[in-house]
């Protein structure tokens, strides 16, 4: 009777998970908790093992895969979050005692401003509690916590998303008049970045980028596009700063070589390829004002301000 033995093991395993979670303390029974776990399993494991996840596919996942997946879940925090979402009083007490203060610290860490931090934390707390009821049922954000990472980390992520959304909203509603009142000077609209004159450069660059590993590309984008520090990137990837630094150097050097090689295969000579990369006007970083005035012994127009003075650095971009 292998089928029966298998189901016995499964039931035993489910009971173990239920016990480990401590869900009983929050009035959650084993079936409810098993249903939650099943939902999470379907959401993640089946979506990666099958293109069309459905409840019927859950049988295709081996017991070992399930066990591994469940072992990686934060069961006790999952039970706490789901119990809070279900409105269990004791769970809320625990949640508040464990995370209320941390939420404010997180908000301060993200916003760097105590007033905004208080607002952000309170807002998130309201979402977590589920102030907005739908059909008479509280809609708590904690329902979406699945225990894949720590509850604290999840709260930070949700808060960061909320902060970015708020920031964008606020940025969107600031009127031009307000900005003008605040003394904001409006520069001329930035022209759309002009495409490289030679399509071969773009193609060679795209190919070189496509050859990078995902982590390399993430590292490049974080550093060169987002302006993240080595420390931030290192923390994100679980590496040491010096490793990230070496990797970036290697990537920058390697990319350049690959692009040059790609350009040569497209009919450019080495000198032409170098020139194509170097003479891109967007790469020119010159202080035009200093270049223009460095050799002049006396000012051409002493006492007067040249209109081009404020745009003397404009050659950098």
């Amino acid at each position, binding site marked *: 009777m292998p089928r029966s033995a298998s189901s016995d093991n499964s039931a035993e395993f489910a009971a173990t998970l239920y*016990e*480990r*979670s*401590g869900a*009983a*303390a929050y009035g959650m029974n084993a079936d409810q908790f098993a249903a939650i776990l099943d939902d999470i399993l379907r959401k993640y494991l089946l979506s*990666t093992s099958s293109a069309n996840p459905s409840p019927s596919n859950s049988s295709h996942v081996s017991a070992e895969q399930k066990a591994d997946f469940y072992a*990686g879940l934060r*069961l*006790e925090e999952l039970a706490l979050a789901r119990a809070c979402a279900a409105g269990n009083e004791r769970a809320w007490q625990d949640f508040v005692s*464990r995370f209320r203060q941390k939420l404010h*610290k997180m908000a301060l*860490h*993200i916003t760097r401003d105590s007033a905004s931090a208080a607002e952000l934390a309170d807002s998130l707390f309201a979402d977590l509690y589920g102030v907005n009821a739908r059909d008479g049922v509280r809609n708590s954000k904690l329902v*979406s916590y*699945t225990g*894949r*990472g*720590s509850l604290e*980390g*999840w709260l*930070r*992520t949700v808060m*960061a*998303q909320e*902060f*970015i959304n708020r920031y964008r909203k606020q940025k969107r509603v600031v009127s031009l008049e307000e900005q003008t009142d605040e003394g904001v000077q409006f520069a001329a609209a930035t022209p759309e*970045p002009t495409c*490289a004159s030679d399509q071969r450069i773009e193609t060679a*660059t*795209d190919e070189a*980028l496509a050859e990078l590993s*995902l982590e390399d*590309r*993430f590292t*490049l*984008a*974080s550093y*060169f*596009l*987002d302006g*993240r520090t080595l420390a*931030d990137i*290192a*923390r*994100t990837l*679980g*590496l*040491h*700063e010096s490793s990230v630094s070496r990797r*970036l*150097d290697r*990537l*920058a050097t390697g*990319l350049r070589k690959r*692009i040059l090689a790609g350009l040569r295969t497209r009919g450019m000579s080495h000198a032409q390829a170098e020139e194509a*990369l170097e003479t*891109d006007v*967007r*790469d020119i970083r010159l202080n035009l004002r200093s270049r223009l005035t460095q050799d002049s012994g006396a000012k051409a127009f002493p006492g007067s301000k040249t209109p081009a003075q404020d745009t003397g650095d404009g050659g950098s971009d």
Partner: protein
Amino acid sequence: MTEVPKIVRDRMRAASPERSHPDPNLLTAFAEQALPAIERDGVLKHLALCADCREVLVLALPLAEAVTAPIAADAESDRITRISKKTERSWLTILAGPSIRWAALAAGVVVAASVLLVHPGKLNQPIAPSENQRVATVASTIVSPASSSPITSPLTGQVAAKTIDDARPNSGPLLSKQLSKKLLSKKPNLGEKTSTEISKEAVGVDAAPPVEDSQMARNDVPVNDAPIIEKAKPAQQQPAETETAGTNEQLKNQPGLALAEDQTFARNVTWAIMAGILQRSVNNGQNWQSALHADRPLLCYASHGEEVWAGGQAGILFRSIDDGVTWAQLQPSVKGQQLGADITHIDIQTDNIHGNVSGPTPIIVFTSNNEVWTSRDGGITWQKN
């Protein structure tokens, strides 16, 4: 940092993510290095193209005071070790450099000569023993009953021991080692390497011809008749050696060496748990090293002074009373029932007003199944609520 061509930035910026954004659970698990390879690659693929999610990820990194860098612990500890050794070496290199050594000897010879010229009759007068003399006296006393060699060096133990060895080859290096060991035990903070280098340095000084000349010059009385201790006393008559002894003592008492180690472990220590490993920073979170890697993931910690507690899955509990240098694993149990649930929080009950504790520090351990375990004797006995 090597720059990339602008076209690379433009092409990266032009790329857009193909899929919808990963949910906060996946981003959190990614940041905590808790995703399996397949899912991690999927998230990375999105992150490489999505600036918004990268921003969320960075904003959601743990608080600065809690964790600054989840680092490759081994590399970091190696780096710290290298820095420590480098510091030692740099101090020793500076102080033991040949130019300074010979300059000190030359200055010493000059002073010794002037002392001999000005006060030729006061060579063997007892003077108030300095710390160096006391150390040398101890060294001499140990071997003095059988010694007939002209031991006149008031150097620190190592030099004295070397002098004894030179004079009494039969006593062999064992005696020297014993002496060095005994004398060096005064400063346990110095590493073995430092001690060795100090000994070498001392030997080099002792073998220097000017010192021997100086010793001969002022010991023209029959040395066999004089008590060994008296011969070892007049430190001021051996300025060259005193200078060297001062250098050695300076090394032994070198605040930079001993204090650096003390500071490393006693000051500015910050703790954090990343990926189930307890991390320690000794420079306010700028760099991190692995302090405790248990067989099961650690979930929480608490620290007060040099006392650190760490708890994790399935009831694993550790305690350190020396800032994480050594750890003891505890297995709390009450009436045969062991703590087996995940430890989610540890509280060290300190005096809230002064930050001090009165008597043994009560420890409260909270578990995932809502048990509360308390110990008031450093984890020896427990109560369960």
